[in-house]
C-alpha cells in the first residue's frame, strides 16, 4: 500500500532516492545544495540505504565522481541547484558525452549575480545543449515520480544519457505538500536492477572511457548522442505508460489542461502551471475559452507533438522563468524554441512571451490572469503589440 505523507519537494526526492537505493551518490554537502542531500545523508547514517555516499569538496568534483562511478558500472545519483550546477559545467557535458546514465535532482534557482538563492530557471536553461534529458515537475509528487522514472529512462539501452529532474526552488522544494509515497518494494521492482553493459570494473573485458577523440571520430560520437536523444522520447513515453499503469498517474511529454476546445493557451512549466490551472478554471467560469499546456519533457524537445497540441489555438502565450540575453527580442528560451517549433510545423498562431518570476519574484493568479486577458486580446485582433513582456517588473 502506498501512503500519503506531508513532505517538502526535497524530502519527496530524498524519499525516492532512499527507495531507489543507488550504488553511489556524490554531492556537495553545503549551499547551494538542497536539503535533499541532508535527508539522504541521514538515510545513509541510519543504514536505510547501502549507498556509497561521497561528500565532495565542490560540484565539479561531485559530477566527476558521478562520472567515474557510473563508468565503473554503478547506479549513480546526485543533487544540485543554481550555481552548484554552474560549477559542474564542464563535467555535465562529459557525463552526457561519455553516456553515463546519472540521475540528478535539480532544484531550479537563479544564477548569480547579484547573489540570489530563489527560484528561476536560469540554471537548467544553461544546460539545455549539454546532452542531458530534462524533465520538469510541478510539485514534490511529480519530482518524486519523475525521479523514479528517470532511472529507467537513463539506463535504457537505447538511451544511456543522464537525466535532470527539475522542480522549483523553495516554491516546491521547501513547501510541504501531500505526496503519495509508494511502497518501497514496488518502487524497487519498478526501477529494477541496473545491468551496466560496459563496466570499468569488468576486469575480464578491459576498456577505456574518455580517451582522446579527435576530428576523426569525435563527430561520429556526437551523432550517436543525437540518436540516443531521438530514442529518448519513445523511451520516456514507454516508461511513463508503465508508470501510469502501476501508480495510476498520467505522465506524457506534456500535460494539457482544458486545451482541447480552448481558443488561447498559456505554456508554462513547473509550479506556476499549478497556479495557472486555477486561473484557467476561474476564466472558464466566465465563459472564456482558455487552456494550459505544461511541458514536462524539455529535452528532448517534443516539437511535433507540441505543434499538434497547440495547432488549433488562435493565440499562444509562453511564460518563461529565465531570459536568453541577447537572443531574439531578449525573449526566454522556452518561447524561442516553441516559436521555432510551431513555425516549422505550420502553426502560425500569434505568440507572445512573458518573462516572470526572476530571482524568486512571486507570481500570483492576478498576473497570470493578465496574461490570459492579453492573449485573448491578441486572438481577437490578431495583432501582437509586444512580443516580449517582462511581467510585473517595476518601471
Amino acid at each position, binding site marked *: 500500500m502506498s501512503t500519503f505523507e506531508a513532505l517538502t519537494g526535497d524530502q519527496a526526492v530524498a524519499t525516492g532516492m532512499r527507495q531507489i537505493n543507488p550504488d553511489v551518490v556524490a554531492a556537495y554537502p553545503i549551499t547551494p545544495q538542497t536539503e535533499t542531500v541532508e535527508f539522504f545523508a541521514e538515510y545513509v547514517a541510519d543504514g536505510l540505504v547501502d549507498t556509497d555516499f561521497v561528500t565532495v569538496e565542490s560540484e565539479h568534483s561531485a559530477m566527476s565522481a558521478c562520472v567515474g562511478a557510473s563508468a565503473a558500472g554503478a547506479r549513480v545519483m546526485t543533487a544540485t541547484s543554481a550555481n552548484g550546477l554552474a560549477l559542474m559545467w564542464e563535467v555535465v557535458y562529459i557525463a552526457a558525452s*561519455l553516456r553515463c546514465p546519472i540521475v540528478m535532482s535539480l532544484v531550479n534557482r537563479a544564477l548569480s549575480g547579484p547573489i540570489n538563492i530563489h527560484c528561476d530557471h536560469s540554471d537548467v536553461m544553461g544546460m539545455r545543449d549539454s546532452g542531458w534529458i530534462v524533465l520538469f515537475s510541478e510539485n514534490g509528487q511529480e519530482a518524486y515520480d519523475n525521479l523514479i522514472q528517470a532511472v529507467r529512462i537513463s539506463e535504457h539501452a537505447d538511451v544511456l544519457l543522464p537525466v535532470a529532474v527539475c522542480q522549483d526552488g523553495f516554491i516546491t522544494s521547501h513547501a510541504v505538500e501531500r505526496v503519495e509515497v509508494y511502497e518501497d518494494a514496488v518502487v524497487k521492482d519498478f526501477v529494477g536492477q541496473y545491468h551496466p553493459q*560496459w563496466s570499468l570494473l569488468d576486469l575480464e573485458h578491459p576498456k577505456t572511457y574518455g580517451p582522446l577523440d579527435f*576530428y576523426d571520430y569525435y563527430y561520429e560520437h556526437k551523432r550517436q548522442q543525437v540518436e540516443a536523444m531521438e530514442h529518448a522520447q519513445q523511451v520516456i513515453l514507454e516508461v511513463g505508460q508503465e508508470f501510469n499503469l502501476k501508480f495510476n498517474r498520467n505522465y506524457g511529454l506534456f500535460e494539457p489542461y482544458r486545451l482541447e476546445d480552448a481558443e488561447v493557451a498559456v505554456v508554462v512549466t513547473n509550479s506556476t502551471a499549478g497556479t495557472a490551472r486555477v486561473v484557467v478554471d476561474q476564466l472558464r467560469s466566465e465563459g472564456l475559452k482558455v487552456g494550459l499546456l505544461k511541458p514536462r519533457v524539455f529535452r528532448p524537445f517534443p516539437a511535433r507533438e507540441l505543434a499538434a497540441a497547440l495547432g488549433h489555438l488562435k493565440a499562444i502565450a509562453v511564460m518563461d522563468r529565465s531570459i536568453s540575453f541577447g537572443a531574439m527580442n531578449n525573449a526566454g528560451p522556452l518561447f524561442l524554441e516553441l516559436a521555432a517549433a510551431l513555425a516549422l510545423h505550420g502553426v502560425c498562431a500569434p505568440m507572445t512571451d512573458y518573462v516572470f518570476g526572476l530571482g524568486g519574484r512571486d507570481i500570483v493568479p492576478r498576473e497570470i490572469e493578465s496574461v490570459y486577458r492579453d492573449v485573448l486580446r491578441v486572438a481577437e485582433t490578431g495583432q501582437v503589440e509586444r512580443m516580449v513582456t517582462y511581467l510585473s517588473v517595476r518601471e
Partner: protein
Amino acid sequence: MVGTGWKDIPIGGMILEAGNAVKYRTGAWRAFRPLRGEAECIHCFQCWIFCPDSSILVDAENEKMAGFDLEHCKGCGVCASICPVNAKVIKNVGEKLAREDARLCIRMIEEGKAQE
C-alpha cells in the same frame, strides 16, 4: 573522411579493445630519437621500466635490451636520462641528425663524444 561510421563504433568514445593503442603510430611526433651504443649496454632494463610508451624492445629469450620501437617512441628522452651512470649508452639525439647519420651518432656515443 575515411573511417568507420557512427553506427559501428562503441558509444561515447569507449575503447573496448585492450591494448589497441599499438595500432596508433605516434612516432612521427618525435623531435628527438634515442640511440644506444649497443656494445656498452649492461641490459639493466631501467629504460624498459621507465619508458612511458612501452617502446623499449626486449629480446626476452636472451634477456637483452634489443632497441627502440620507433613507430611509437615520442622521443621524450626518459630512457636516456635513466640510463645508469656506469653505462650511459642511451642518448637522445635530434631526429634530423639521427635520420641523416645514425651510424655516426652511435659511434660518437660509443666513443663518449656525443652530447645530449
